[in-house]
C-alpha cells in the first residue's frame, strides 16, 4: 500500500480521493448538493478554459463568461429551436464559441497586457448587448428556458443523473487539458507566456499558438456554458456579466494560475463556499473580491503552489523533496 502511495504521489492520492468522493458520496446527499455539485464542476470546466489562455499562454482575458454565454445560447438554440439532439447541440454550441474565440483571437494578436484586457472587456460588453438586443434567438433580457435532455429515452430531469453526466464530461475535460498542457502545444504556450521574443526565436509560431489558445479556451468555456444552461434550466444575460468573468479569474488565482488541478480545486471550493455562507449572500462580490486580493498577496501561486510545501510536511522526506521539485516544475 505504501509503495503504491509512493508511486502515485500526493497529488495522485488526492485526485483519486476527490474522484471517489465526487462519485460515491453524492447519492447520500440531498438534491441541493447534486445541484451545487453540478455547478461546481461546470465552473471547473470554465476555469480550465480560462486557465489555458491566461494561466498557460499568459493572455489576459476578461471575457470568459462571454464564451460561456455563446455556448449556452447556441446549445439552447440548437436543442430547443432547431430540434437537434442534445448530444449534438452541446458540442455544436462549444464549437460556435470556439469560432468566436478564433475571431477574437485576430485583433487580440496584436495586443498585449492592458490593451488585451480592455479589448476582452469590450468583447464582454458587446456580447451582453447582442444577447439583449437579439431576443428572437436569446429571449433578450427576459431570458430563455433550456430543458433537460434525454439519454436513451430516459429524461435527465433528475439532478443526480445529470450530475453524473457533467462529472463524466469534466473528467474528459481534465484529461484533455492536462494532456494538452504537457504536449508541445502546452510547452509552446508556456514559452510565449514567459517571453514572447524568445519563443519567437525558438521557432514557435507565436501568432498561431495564441489563436490556438483563444480557440481552446473558448471551446472549454462554451462547453461549460452549454452544460450550465441545461443544468440550471434557464439562462439570461445577467448570468454572464463581468462579475462571472472575474469569478473565473478568482478560481484560477486561488487554485493556482497555470495548473489544471488548481483550477478545479479553486472552482469547486469557491462554488461551495458561498453556499456555506448563505447568510452573507448579499456580500458575495465583496467576499470574492476580498478573497482575490488576499490570495494575490498571500499566495501568488495559489493553492497549487502551496501543495508542495504542505505535502513536504506529511510525506516521507526523500520522496517529498522529489514531489516538491516535480510539482514546482509542472505548476508554472
Amino acid at each position, binding site marked *: 500500500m505504501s509503495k503504491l502511495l509512493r508511486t502515485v504521489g500526493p497529488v495522485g492520492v488526492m485526485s483519486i480521493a476527490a474522484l471517489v468522493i465526487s462519485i460515491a458520496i453524492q447519492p447520500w446527499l440531498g438534491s441541493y448538493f447534486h445541484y451545487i455539485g453540478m455547478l461546481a464542476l461546470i465552473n471547473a470546466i470554465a476555469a480550465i478554459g480560462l486557465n489555458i489562455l491566461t494561466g498557460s499562454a499568459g493572455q*489576459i482575458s476578461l471575457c470568459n463568461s462571454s464564451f460561456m454565454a455563446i455556448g449556452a445560447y447556441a446549445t439552447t438554440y440548437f436543442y430547443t429551436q432547431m430540434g437537434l439532439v442534445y448530444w449534438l447541440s452541446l458540442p455544436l454550441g462549444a464549437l460556435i464559441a470556439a469560432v468566436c474565440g478564433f475571431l477574437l483571437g485576430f485583433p487580440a494578436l496584436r*495586443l498585449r497586457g*492592458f490593451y488585451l484586457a480592455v*479589448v476582452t472587456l469590450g468583447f464582454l460588453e458587446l456580447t451582453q448587448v447582442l444577447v439583449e438586443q437579439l431576443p428572437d434567438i436569446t429571449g433578450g433580457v427576459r431570458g430563455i428556458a433550456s430543458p433537460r435532455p434525454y439519454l436513451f429515452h430516459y429524461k435527465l430531469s433528475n439532478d443526480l443523473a445529470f450530475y453524473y453526466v457533467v462529472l463524466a464530461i469534466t473528467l474528459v475535460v481534465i484529461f484533455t487539458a492536462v494532456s494538452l498542457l504537457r504536449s508541445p502545444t502546452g510547452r509552446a504556450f508556456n514559452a510565449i507566456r514567459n517571453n514572447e521574443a524568445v519563443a519567437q526565436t525558438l521557432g514557435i509560431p507565436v501568432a498561431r499558438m495564441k489563436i490556438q489558445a483563444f480557440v481552446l479556451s473558448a471551446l472549454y468555456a462554451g462547453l461549460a456554458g452549454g452544460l450550465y444552461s441545461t443544468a440550471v434550466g434557464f439562462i439570461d444575460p445577467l448570468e454572464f456579466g463581468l*462579475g462571472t468573468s472575474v469569478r473565473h*479569474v478568482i478560481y484560477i488565482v486561488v487554485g493556482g494560475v497555470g495548473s489544471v488541478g488548481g483550477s478545479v480545486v479553486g472552482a469547486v471550493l469557491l462554488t461551495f463556499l458561498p453556499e456555506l455562507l448563505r447568510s452573507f449572500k448579499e456580500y*458575495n462580490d465583496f467576499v470574492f473580491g476580498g478573497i482575490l486580493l488576499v490570495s494575490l498577496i498571500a499566495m501568488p501561486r495559489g493553492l497549487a503552489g502551496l501543495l508542495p510545501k504542505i505535502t513536504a510536511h506529511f510525506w516521507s522526506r526523500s520522496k517529498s523533496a522529489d514531489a516538491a521539485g516535480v510539482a514546482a516544475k509542472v505548476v508554472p
Partner: protein
Amino acid sequence: MPIGVYAQLLAGGLSTGSIYALVGLGLMLAYKGTGVLNFAQGELVTLGAYTALFLSLTTSLPYWAIFILTVLLAGVIGVVFERLLVRPLMLAPEFTVVVATLAVGLMIKDALRIAWQETVSSIPSPFADVSVRLGDISINAQYLWVTFCALAIMGILALFFRNNLAGKAMRAVAQNQTAARLMGIRVNRVFSATFALSTAIAALAGILIAPIHGIEPEMGNVLIKGFVAAVLGGFNSLVGCVIAAFMLGVIETFGGAFFGGLFKDVTAFALLILVLLVRPNGLFGSAEARRV
C-alpha cells in the same frame, strides 16, 4: 427632421462624450503617472456620485458647495486608494494589476449596492430644469454645463502640465522615475497627487452625469467608454482623448437616434477594434518603441 432636433442630439452627444472624456482623462493620468491602469475607475465615478448624493441628503448645502466638497473628498479617497492599492501593485505583473483593480471595483460596487439598494437617485442641479434658447433651438443647460466642465478640465490640465512645477514633476515621473528622483522630485508624493487628481476627475464625472442618467450602482460601466476614448486618443494626449470622446459621444447619440439602440451600443467596441488594428497608437498618437 427639424434643425432643433439635430442641435439637441449634438448637445446630448457632446455631453455624453464629455463624461467619456473625463473618465478617459482620469485613466490616462493615472496610467501615465504610475503605470497602473485602473479598472476601478468606473467605480470611482460611482463613488463620487454617491458621495455627492450622501452630502445632498444629509446636509442642506447648495449645489456648488456639494460640488466642491465632493471633488475635494474624492481627492482624499484617491490618496488613500493610491497608498493602499496602487503602490503595492506598481511593480506587479499586468495580470495582477488588472485583477486587483477589478476586484476593488467590484467591492466598491457591491458595498454601494448594499448601502443604497438598486434605487436610482439623483442630486438636484441648478442646470437640470433650465433650457437655453437660441432662436427655435432649446437645449438643456445641464448638457452645456457638462461639456463646459470637460473642456475646462482639459484646459486646466494642459496649462498645469505645461506651466506648473507640480505638473512638470508629474510629467518627469511619467517619463522616468529614477531620473525624476535624482532631480530631487519626491516621486511618492507625485504618485499620491496623480491619483488624487485622477479620482477627483472621476468624481466630477459622477456629479455631472447624475442629473442626466441618475445615480445607480451600475454607473461604473462607463469605464469601457472611457477606455475607448483614451485609446482612440492615443493614450498620450489630453486633447486627443477629449476629441475622441466627443466623437464617440456624438456618433453614439446620432447612431442611436437613426439606427436604434443596437448600433449605439456596438459603436464603441467596433471603433476600439478598428483603431487598434489600423492605428494601434490611436488617431492622434505617435508610434512608440517597445523594449523587448
